[in-house]
């Protein structure tokens, strides 16, 4: 197992380099000078402009932060490969560069501020997804062809075909406006933002609609996977063996069927959690959620490349780590999977 983890972590390196390189190249292919972007309408004085270019590694500078001039007295533009090496070197020290907007704030600080919101929303959504998805799937499988099974099948079919942003808007319309008007303002759910200035759960009502929106589609998938898996497992010979031992139907489902049926469900939920931690751009944008997804969306529209680059880099790492955790958790759920040691295989 130890060797397997080391191998997987080593595999991170080429993926990481590849993704950052592609993003870095994309940033440079897109037309527009970042300094002009920062300046906007204003006219910068030459010294400020040179300082900014040094800050963003656009021109060569010496160790004191003074620009280096060529024989004609012009600043020397840093070659792209050197800026890429600088960038990756910075990443290793936790330096994600500086935002073009937001007064040149370090990207690492911006992400550190936004990530707690995204993580908490993802946790709430994944709990909803697991409980409702697995529960609905189980009911559906155990009471096959009953009213509840048909209801679950119907709702999941509708759910998977609704785009998250549209569902979010409908929920906002109903819980934020229609319900508020109908009850004379007595009862409604907040439809924008995350409440207070910190990502505490005091303002838990703010989490309801975004979490429901974020988990809706996955919830339907979890229910479907759970249903088909449980039905498949319940048809297995070892279930009959367990029944022949004298176990009740309930014990057979809880002790024998569930663990087997959950293996693919856990995979799906794990992968989905990785995706949610990457920031749910649509959901966060619809609900003005102050997380990385919304921040990334804003950065893209404003061409704030360092933030896009930084957040995607962090997302890549997070998703890779989550995937590794999912793969490792397999081995605990299914003893037939043993990583790394040839003795235990087969």
């Amino acid at each position, binding site marked *: 197992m130890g060797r397997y983890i080391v191998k997987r972590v080593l595999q991170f390196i080429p993926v990481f380099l590849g993704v950052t390189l592609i993003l870095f190249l994309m940033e440079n292919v897109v037309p527009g000078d970042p300094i002009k972007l920062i300046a906007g309408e204003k006219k910068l004085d030459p010294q400020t402009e040179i300082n900014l270019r040094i800050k963003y590694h656009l021109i060569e500078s010496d160790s004191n932060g003074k620009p280096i001039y060529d024989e004609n007295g012009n600043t020397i533009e840093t070659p792209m490969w050197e800026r890429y090496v600088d960038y990756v070197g910075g990443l290793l020290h936790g330096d994600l560069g500086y935002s073009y907007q937001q007064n040149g704030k370090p990207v690492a600080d911006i992400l550190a501020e936004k990530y707690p919101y995204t993580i908490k929303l993802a946790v709430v959504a994944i709990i909803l997804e697991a409980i409702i998805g697995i529960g609905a799937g189980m009911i559906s499988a155990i009471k096959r062809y009953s009213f509840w099974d048909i209801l679950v099948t119907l709702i999941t079919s509708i759910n998977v075909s609704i785009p998250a942003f549209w569902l979010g808007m409908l929920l906002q319309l109903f819980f934020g406006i229609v319900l508020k008007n109908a009850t004379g303002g007595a009862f409604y759910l907040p439809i924008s933002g995350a409440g207070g200035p910190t990502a505490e759960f005091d303002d838990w009502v703010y989490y309801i609609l975004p979490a429901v929106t974020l988990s809706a589609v996955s919830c339907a998938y979890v229910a479907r996977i759970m249903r088909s898996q449980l039905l498949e497992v319940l048809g297995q010979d070892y279930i009959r063996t367990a029944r022949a031992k004298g176990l009740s139907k309930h014990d057979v489902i809880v002790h024998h069927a569930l663990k087997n049926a959950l293996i693919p469900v856990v995979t799906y939920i794990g992968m989905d959690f990785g995706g949610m931690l990457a920031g749910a751009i649509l959901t966060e944008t619809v609900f003005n959620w102050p997380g990385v997804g919304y921040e990334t969306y804003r950065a893209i529209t404003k061409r704030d490349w360092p933030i896009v680059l930084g957040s995607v880099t962090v997302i890549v790492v997070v998703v890779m780590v989550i995937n590794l955790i999912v793969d490792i958790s397999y081995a605990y*759920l*299914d003893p037939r999977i043993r990583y790394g040691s040839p003795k235990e295989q087969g």
Partner: protein
Amino acid sequence: MRKKNQEDTWTELKEQPVPEGHHLLEVQDLKMYFYTQDGVVKAVNGVSYNLDRGETLGVVGESGSGKSVTSLTIMGLVDMPPGKIMGGDVLYRGKSLLKMSERDMQHVRGNDIAMIFQDPMTSLNPVYTIGRQLSEGMRLHLGYTKEQAWKRSIELLDMVGIPNPEQRVKDYPHEFSGGMRQRVMIAMALACNPDILIADEPTTALDVTIQAQIIELMQEMQQKNGNAIIMITHDLGVVADVADKIMVMYAGSPVEFGTADEIFYGSLHPYTWGLTRSIPDPVFTEKHPLTPIEGNPPSLVNVPKGCPFSPRCPYATALCHEKYPDLYVTETGHYSRCHYAGDPEFVKKNAPANSRTKAAAKAAKEGGEA
């Protein structure tokens, strides 16, 4: 998991004596049909037999003849619906299993009547250790603690001939071979010392060399524990050695029932003859090939009119195609469901030769010459 000691109303059935006038297990004209979209499948259609402790009953028939479903019905493991009991009864120590509540039935399963299944590769749960799966029944029925059950599991594995049981008990099913897994299944079935062991084609999925070992193991365990065995198989050769009584099934009903001796040396049903002829024999050569039973078993949705075997029976007459045959019962309890079972000439002319008839013919011939 519910433990035994939490139950107070239940009396241990296997500790009760068999009531006067009853057998250990009595199956009386059992009928179980499946109601499917395609129609009514008469999977078990009038099965009757008795079984006592220490006895072995062989249930023989082709695939789809209702052998397994009969035993699953006895165990109460058929899903209802689509299954439905249409008549008959199953008495275990004089008590009806069919009228028992699901809760009481859970005490009987694994405790009084245990079952071994055909495919040991898929009959064990892949995600739990052998020890946990062995312990489960003992903790449920015998009220063992985890430690007691684990200790007993090691003893059971040792008993069924698994080497190094202290280590193996911690292993998972995929770390065992097919034969080993079937040994584990036997250990699991015998864990609570059941009265009746139902073995549903226990050797079909195994190598020939392992088959003999598994059969021997079951017999050895039977001698030790005195339990009854119901051995379901499509292979007459397997039951020849082990069974005291044999029931031959066709299309959901028993067509012949008798002692092993009666079935092998004095069979009264053409279907049994067909099965006997299809036992491979070393003297069979290209010139003397194996004689199969022509055709296929009927669909249980559409059982042929008259005798169900009549379309495949080489001796069928107009009567056979019209009328469902009555049971022909001899004094010893040997019965056959054939119109002509009572006709000694018919039987003598058409029954396959066996070692006894050959010897008798030889003796008669020699006697005639002398």
